[in-house]
């Protein structure tokens, strides 16, 4: 006690100033650290994405040199190289990029707004709903092309609305949404199975290809359609990002901070469903991308934020990488669709995620 008693009394204003200074510098350091990490992660992912794009453009029946690809991309190049890049490989590449981005962002929205890593459109029936509708349209209605995509879109949206209605009890119960979604996914799978067994082998084969998710059928009109859909949806996502971040504090806190949680959740889920359906309509249900992209991105960034841009990039890298592997690494005569590869990555990934998840205090 004597030590305390003889210590000179702290001059209060000095102490206040010192505390403020410590707080300010702590804030600055924290902000800078988070920014640096996010930008490092984003740039590394962007570099990987660009490398994949160039690789995808180089490889194929008519191999191009790195130089040739770069020339075409920068507006030059010879006619043949340009034809190969723009007409043969371009649509498939861009479709893979767009599908990856859409699925990555969609998964990030779902998982954060429902606060559940299982809440992703490919787990809770949105993708399956799209598939069931598409398969039924293909096999029972004989629809193809854009009409097929439109049915997929309608199927996914219908599942989304249905889940919303089921899970609504004066507010959305997240676990109910997810669990009924898993039920819907199985119901859709049985619809698909039923339709498939009723149709002849040739047709069923085409449906099966669509259902594994494939970007092989890409052409520029399809790419343009998906591109313009994303051009509408992604800016809206950017607008809801901030309210969504506040919503992560839970409904009570969010409401206390001046948010309408139900409104924000409805908008975010609507955007997530729309993105997933758009991607599925264009390429079929590419397995596990929406499910894996956001957790990977978030773990890389590691600050408890939404990590929307990194999720988009991880989704892009996954789909594009998987397509490169499917086309060029696996034997050519296999003609494996991209969805098979992403699915093969997704299963082990989930196990790894569970095995390495940091133990959290109860």
């Amino acid at each position: 006690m004597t030590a305390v008693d003889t210590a000179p009394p702290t001059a209060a204003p000095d102490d206040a100033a010192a505390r403020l200074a410590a707080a300010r510098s702590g804030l600055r350091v924290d902000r800078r650290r988070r920014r640096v990490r996010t930008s490092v992660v984003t740039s590394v992912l962007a570099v990987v994405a660009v490398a994949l794009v160039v690789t995808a453009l180089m490889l194929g029946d008519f191999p191009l040199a790195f130089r040739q690809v770069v020339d075409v991309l920068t507006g030059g190049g010879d006619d043949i190289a340009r034809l190969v890049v723009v007409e043969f490989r371009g649509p498939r590449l861009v479709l893979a990029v767009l599908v990856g981005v859409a699925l990555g962002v969609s998964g990030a929205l779902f998982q954060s707004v429902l606060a559940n890593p299982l809440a992703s459109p490919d787990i809770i029936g949105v993708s399956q709903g799209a598939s069931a509708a598409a398969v039924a349209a293909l096999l029972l209605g004989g629809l193809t092309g854009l009409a097929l995509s439109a049915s997929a879109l309608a199927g996914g949206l219908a599942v989304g609305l249905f889940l919303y209605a089921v899970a609504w009890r004066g507010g959305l119960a997240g676990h109910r949404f997810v669990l009924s979604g898993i039920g819907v996914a199985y119901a859709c799978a049985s619809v698909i199975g039923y339709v498939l067994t009723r149709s002849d082998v040739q047709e069923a084969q085409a449906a099966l290809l669509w259902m594994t998710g494939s970007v092989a059928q890409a052409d520029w009109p399809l790419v343009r359609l998906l591109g313009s859909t994303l051009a509408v949806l992604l800016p809206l996502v950017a607008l809801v990002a901030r309210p969504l971040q506040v919503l992560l504090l839970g409904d009570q806190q969010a409401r206390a901070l001046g948010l309408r949680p139900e409104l924000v959740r409805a908008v975010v889920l609507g955007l997530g469903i729309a993105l997933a359906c758009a991607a599925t309509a264009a390429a079929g249900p590419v397995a596990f991308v929406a499910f894996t992209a956001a957790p990977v991105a978030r773990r890389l960034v590691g600050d408890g934020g939404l990590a929307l841009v990194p999720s988009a990039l991880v989704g892009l890298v996954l789909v594009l990488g998987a397509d490169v592997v499917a086309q060029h690494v696996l034997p050519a005569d296999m003609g494996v669709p991209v969805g098979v590869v992403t699915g093969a990555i997704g299963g082990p990934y989930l196990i790894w995620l569970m095995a390495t998840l940091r133990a959290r205090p109860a």
Partner: protein
Amino acid sequence: MTLTTDKTADATTEHASAETIHALAAGLEGERHEPVRLAAHGLHLAYDKRTVVHGVDLEVPPGAVTVIVGANGCGKSTLLRGLGRILKPAGGHVELDGRDIARQRPRDVARLLGLLPQQPLAPEGITVADLVARGRHPHQGAFRRHGAGDAEAVAQALALTDTHELAGRRVEELSGGQRQRVWVAMMLAQDPRIMLLDEPTTYLDIAHQVDVLDLLTELNRTRGTTVVMVLHELALAARYADHLVVMHEGRLFRAGPPAEVLDADCVREAFGLEARVVPDPVTGSPLVVPVGRHQRRA
């Protein structure tokens, strides 16, 4: 002998002196608030169909400290949620600034009124700085991002709650008491004119309990902030309340100045506890001393 905290016993935390708090609080952005009125009229609150709060009429004294006490499960948190328009009334209504709170824009309400829940959630991995900064949300638009004024408000909130050394730490890695002070900091960053706090002193050691209560009192005195909080510690409640509200089974049991409200009858009825009420040796406010079954002096 006076009760002083032995500073050598707690090397990691230096408590802010009263002068420090005063200097910081006085330096907060903005001047003294005009007190804002908050009142419940015939308020019924229910979960699903089960009514938990039955027809509460409560005028929160503007610019004063109101403390709500009552037994576990008697509806204190529920009442606070109703006042903070987290829960929609099953009957009656809440008025903020003379108008029905349900008809006002959520963001406008959030600038006037803040609420710290009993068990707030923090997203995994979030840092203290990031969390406290989210308290600024009602002051920012969709396009107006985190500016210098926001950063300063956050810094002040950290300095006032003894959390200025924790800015870069992850919230989930803090001790219960540190985390609780971070939540109080978030409320300070929000800077509302009425603060509703549900047990803001849980998890806090006795010195930090007094710190948080002193801080709220300081904000109340220097800035005119209206404080409404739920406390379990009756001695502290009686000391810090200008207005004490005792709840019992979803109803207002008694309300008024602590010295008039808190007596042995009240404690027996509201808590089912035999107790003696004596004057607090430090402040003279009523001090509830439980009798208990086994510890009577022979």
